[in-house]
Every structure is written in structure tokens, then in C-alpha cells.
């Protein structure tokens, strides 16, 4: 497992040397341009062809507040369908990869992500439970968040009780898998109990969701938890560095590790459950994007966290562009991220293996 830590660059001495190096500004600027470029490119992509000059004209007219001179249909496609979907794609991608990066730091474990820790499965169960009991849409969100948090807590406490420092990385991942399948099973039980004509399709829709029918309502639903989860992580991100050194060192540096850990876990879980509410369960993003980002900007959370958010937003947006433009019918987003993510995970394992020998 030591090798995996090496992949993530968590050896303390290395970390300090890297952390002290000033973050490369041009790299960050380039990363910041990525989602903007992807956003603009995505505006022009879609099954409904909008010629580029017309698109530019519409945007300019909208910004200047001029009267509409284009057909209503164009307006609907752009503002009711395409832009809400792009915005949600950006936010979901940023949320999943930021929470993935934060979890990895807090648990000192490069192999964790929202899905591996059980946060996704827990949130999914919470949502199914809330739908079954006729909660409001805010109630559904809150219940999803609560059970997501519960699942992470289970994973964390069970694994730390079991491992006592031995093989902690592996045991956390295995415990996470157990918790994850437990909550998935609970969800299946709920689906089994649900009224097939009414509740079941709603639960299925919620869990599989996808960004397919994203509207402005979804954008508004996402923004608030997105901001509430994202802002504390951004403000505290340098402290994740300290947490990832280990308990002793962090305490030595005068950081209240317990409180810090809780705030970071709560924020990350909120981001995860809010994403699931919008897009259903999308695996792998929270695992692979932080790793990719680490390869580019290094392990310092000061830059890693915002860079992960930017890369994640771009990645998910581009994948969703494929999902919505390539075929006449939609390709489920989760399938695409798995096709890209699973080989990458194998690559990580191989990296680990080759350095063992």
C-alpha cells in the first residue's frame, strides 16, 4: 500500500518540499480556462444544430437585453435544454471531484472516492426512503444527505476499529465496499416495497437520473448545496494538507483535527448527495479526477482542490457532451464514466504493483 501512497505523493518529506514550492500560476490559469472553453464549445454542441454565427448573436443579444429576433424553438433549446444541462454538468463534475479529493486527503487514502466510501449508495438509499414516505423535494435532499453522511461515518468508524493502523488503506476500501453494498441492498428492498405504478418509477428515475432532463429547476436546486459544500472546502483546503500528514503532526501544528475532519467530511458528503440528486449515481469521477489532477499540479491541496474542481467540471461536461450528441438516443452517463474510469483504476493498481516488485 505504501506504493499507492507514493502515487498520491503523500510521503511527508516530499509533501513539504512540494508544498513550499510556489504553485505554478500559468498551470492554474490554463486549468481555469479549461471549463470556460468547454462551456463555450458545449454551447455549440447538440442534436439540434444551431449555426455558430446565430449562436453568437443570440448570446450577445441576450447579454445586451435586446429583443428576440430568432425563432422560439432556438430559445427553448438553448435556454431550457442546453444551458441548464451544461451548468449542471459543470457543477456535478466539480462537486464529485472536489469531494473525492477532499475524502482522499482526510482519510489519508488515495483509493477512496464518494462511491467507494459508500456516500453515494447511502445518499441513494436516503432518497429512495424519502420518496417512499412522500417527503418534499427539500426533504428528499436532506434525507439523502443524512444517509450519505451516515454511510461515510459507518465506513470510517468500522474500518478504524478494525484496522488499528494496520493496512488502513485496504481496510477502509473494503469496509467501504461492504457499506456500499449494504445500502444498495436497502435501496433494493425499498424498490421492492414501493408501489410499482407510482413510487417505483420515481425512485428509479431518481437513482438513474442522468442529466437527461435537466431544467433550470435542477440548476437552482444544485447551486445552494454546491455553494454550501464548496466554500468551506476552499477555505480550509490548506488544512487538508496538514490532516493528510497524520494525527500527531497535525496536532503538533496546532490544528483541531477532529473538528476539521468533521467539517470536511460534511461538506464533501453534501456535495456528493447534491450531485446524486441531480444526476443519479455517476461513478469514478471522484476517484480518477483527483489522481489526474495530482499528476499535473502535485499533491498540495492549496492548488489540488481548485484544480480538481476545474478538471472535474471539464471532464464531466465533455463526457456528457458525448452522451447527448453522438447518438439519436441518449447514452447513460454512468456507463461512459465507468468505461473511462475502470481502466484508469486498473492502471493505478498496476502502477502500485510494478513498484512493489
Amino acid at each position: 500500500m505504501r506504493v499507492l501512497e507514493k502515487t498520491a505523493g503523500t510521503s511527508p518529506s516530499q509533501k513539504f518540499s512540494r508544498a513550499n514550492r510556489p504553485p505554478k500560476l500559468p498551470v492554474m490559469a490554463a486549468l481555469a480556462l479549461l471549463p470556460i472553453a468547454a462551456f463555450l464549445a458545449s454551447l455549440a454542441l447538440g442534436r439540434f444544430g444551431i449555426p455558430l454565427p446565430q449562436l453568437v448573436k443570440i448570446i450577445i443579444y441576450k447579454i445586451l437585453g435586446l429583443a428576440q429576433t430568432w425563432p422560439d424553438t432556438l430559445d427553448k433549446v438553448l435556454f431550457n435544454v442546453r444551458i441548464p444541462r451544461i451548468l449542471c454538468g459543470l457543477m456535478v463534475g466539480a462537486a464529485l471531484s472536489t469531494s473525492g479529493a477532499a475524502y482522499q486527503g482526510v482519510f489519508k487514502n488515495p483509493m477512496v472516492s464518494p462511491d467507494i466510501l459508500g456516500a453515494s449508495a447511502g445518499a441513494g438509499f436516503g432518497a429512495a426512503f424519502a420518496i417512499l414516505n412522500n417527503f418534499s423535494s427539500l426533504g428528499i435532499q436532506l434525507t439523502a444527505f443524512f444517509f450519505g453522511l451516515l454511510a461515510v461515518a459507518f465506513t470510517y468508524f468500522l474500518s478504524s476499529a478494525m484496522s488499528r493502523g494496520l493496512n488502513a488503506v485496504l481496510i477502509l476500501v473494503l469496509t467501504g465496499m461492504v457499506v456500499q453494498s449494504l445500502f444498495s441492498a436497502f435501496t433494493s428492498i425499498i424498490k421492492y416495497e414501493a408501489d410499482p405504478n407510482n413510487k417505483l418509477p420515481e425512485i428509479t428515475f431518481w437513482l438513474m437520473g442522468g442529466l437527461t432532463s435537466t431544467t433550470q429547476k435542477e440548476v437552482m436546486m444544485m447551486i445552494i448545496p454546491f455553494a454550501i459544500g464548496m466554500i468551506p472546502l476552499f477555505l480550509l483546503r490548506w488544512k487538508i494538507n496538514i490532516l493528510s500528514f497524520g494525527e500527531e503532526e497535525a496536532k503538533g501544528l496546532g490544528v483541531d483535527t477532529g473538528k476539521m475532519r468533521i467539517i470536511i467530511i460534511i461538506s464533501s458528503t453534501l456535495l456528493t448527495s447534491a450531485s446524486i440528486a441531480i444526476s443519479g449515481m455517476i461513478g469514478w469521477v471522484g476517484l480518477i479526477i483527483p489522481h489526474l489532477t495530482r499528476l499535473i499540479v502535485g499533491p498540495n491541496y492549496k492548488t489540488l482542490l481548485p484544480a480538481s474542481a476545474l478538471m472535474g467540471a471539464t471532464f464531466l461536461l465533455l463526457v456528457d457532451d458525448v452522451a447527448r450528441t453522438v447518438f439519436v438516443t441518449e447514452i447513460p452517463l454512468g456507463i461512459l464514466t465507468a468505461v473511462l474510469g475502470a481502466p484508469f483504476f486498473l492502471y493505478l493498481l498496476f502502477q502500485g504493483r510494478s513498484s512493489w516488485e
Partner: protein
Amino acid sequence: MKKQKVKQAFALVLCLAMMLIAASGCAKTTTANQSASPSPTQQTASDKQEITDMLGNKVTIPKTIKKVYCTSPIGTYIIYTIAPDRLIGWNSKMSDEANQYINESYRNLPALGGTMGGQNSFNTEEIIKLNPDIILDFAYNGEVSDMVTQLSKQSGIPVVTLDSSLAKTPEAYRLLGKILGVEDRGTALADYAQKTLDKVSSSVAKVPDSEKLRIYYVESADGLKTDGTDSMHTEVINFVNATNVVTMDTSSSGKGTSVSMEQVVNWNPDVIIANSQMGGNEFLKTVYNNKTWSSISAVKNKRIYVPASLPFNWIDRPPCIARILGAEWLANKLYPNYANFDLKSDVKAFYKLFYNVDITDAQAESLLNTTSGIS
């Protein structure tokens, strides 16, 4: 330290900027909608009409409807029979076998996806691009899918919802005839459907309770997936005065509900109906050699039927207009002494009237013969 402050500010600004973009996107849209909404009603008021759909919703739709998008094959197939030129696509690609019975000009319509099985596979932008005049949805027990409501909201295309129950088929045809401006055609199909349904129900009504058959409906190759009496998928069984042995709650979305072999042995159905769309043919191939199944009365008496499925399944999957013929066929299979119909000529008449294909005696027989349990 200073650099870190700058970084932090940068991240915050970025975060805020994203929110602003999102918020302004929404604000813009609302104003756009406001400015755009009065115009269509002014200029086109005379081209619109208000109708009441089968759920009692008042819907404003264009007077002339040239293009219809159907959210599931139930709708697509009914439109294919009443006014195929209005279809903008199938929901999934038609098989070569089904295409034998489909008029050539419609064989290659695109597959647009739909909301089948609790999952939506349609592409919202693609549907808007094809610009249908209405979205046609079918509801069972009045349950409407959120995805359809959402599609209509996003695209601004009105949804007309019809009732998918078998007995309401004539009513659906009449309403569609009116909406699509093909009233004569609608009435002709509605009358035929009504006549057939009446004929079937009056003949099966004579079956005494003591002779009522107990049916098990197979929806998988291993025979252990089924749907119960409450499901939209088993309406024909109820309609022909037979008893579905499965009375528990079963899921209507997805691919049937799993049951155990012991439970099936315990039910001991008189007749098994296997759906070829759901592995019925594979089931039929193996069931007579299977020791466990051989104890069941339907298997012992070789009373396993696989309904024809071309171009559309006669019984279910989807539960569509072909069930008119399916009901007649099943009544005859189950109760030949009470429901004695000239099936061959009825099959030919149905295919001519509904699908506009002339089928030969041989084709009619082969459709009826896919149904026999023993071959």
C-alpha cells in the same frame, strides 16, 4: 502568505462566477419566456384548438397535426395503425421479421428512444429538432411519467395523454381520429376494435366458473419472471375471463417480477402463456424436457402458448392495439367451445385494416401457429 490570499480570493471568485453564470442563465430565460409567450397566441390563435385528453386534461394543440412523437411503443403502434404518415420515428429499431409486416416507407424511420421500463432514452434536443406538433403519451391507471412532463416543459410541445387499458382502445382511436383529422379512419378502427372486444367478452362470459382456467404468464427464458393481475401487462388474461394465478403486487416497470419454482409448482396453473419478446421461445424449447416443470398441469397437458409477435406482440410488451386480435386469439385458445371464431379470416382482416398489409393464408397460419404449444 499574500499569494495564498490571492489564491483564495481567486477560488472564491471562480465559485461565485459559476453561480452568477447559472443564475443569470436562468434569469435570462424567464424574461425570454415572458417576451416570447404572447406572440404565438396572437398570431396563431385560429390555428389552435383545445381538446380534452383521456385523463381529462385540457390541452391546447395545433389544429393540423403533421408530426407526432410517441413516448412509448404503445403510442407509436396506435399512430402507425391510424395515420402512419404522422410518425417521426419508432422508439427502438424494428426487427427484420417485424418489417415484413410494416409498409416499406416506414421501415427505416429513426429509433428515437422513449420512456420504456422506467428509464428515458430519448434525446431532448433531438425531439425538439424534429419539432413534433404533439407528444403522445399513454398512461395506465392515470399514472403519468415525470420524464414526459419534463420533456413537454422543456420543449413547449403539448402532451396528449391517452388511457392504455384494453377496453379503452376504441375510445383512444376515436379521439386520435379527431385530433389528427382522420375521423373516418379513427371511427373504422374504433368500430372494429369495439366489435371484436364485444364479441370476445360476450362469448367468454358464458364460461361457467367451474371451467375458468388458471393462467401463469411467463416473461423469461427460465419461466420464473411474471406479472400479476394488477399489472398493465396481463390485461388480456383478465379480459378473456381467465384467472391469473399471480395475485401479489408485481412491478409494472422493468422486466417482470421474479418468483420461485416452488411457488409456481404450488400455483399449478392450467395454462402457461409465454411471451416471445421476453424469452418465451427459449422457455418453450426446454420446458417439456424439464423434470421440475413436468409436474405442472399446464406442462402435462401441453397447454403452453406463445402469442404471435409480428409486427407487434398480440398480448403484451408492449400492451398495444394488437391485443384486440390477441384477446380474440386467447379466448379461442382457452375456451374453444365458447369462443369459436374463424381466426384465420379475422387475422387477415385485422392485418389488412390495421396494418394495411395483405397477408396470405400461409402467413396467417404461421402467425396462428407460432402459438401452438406442441409442434
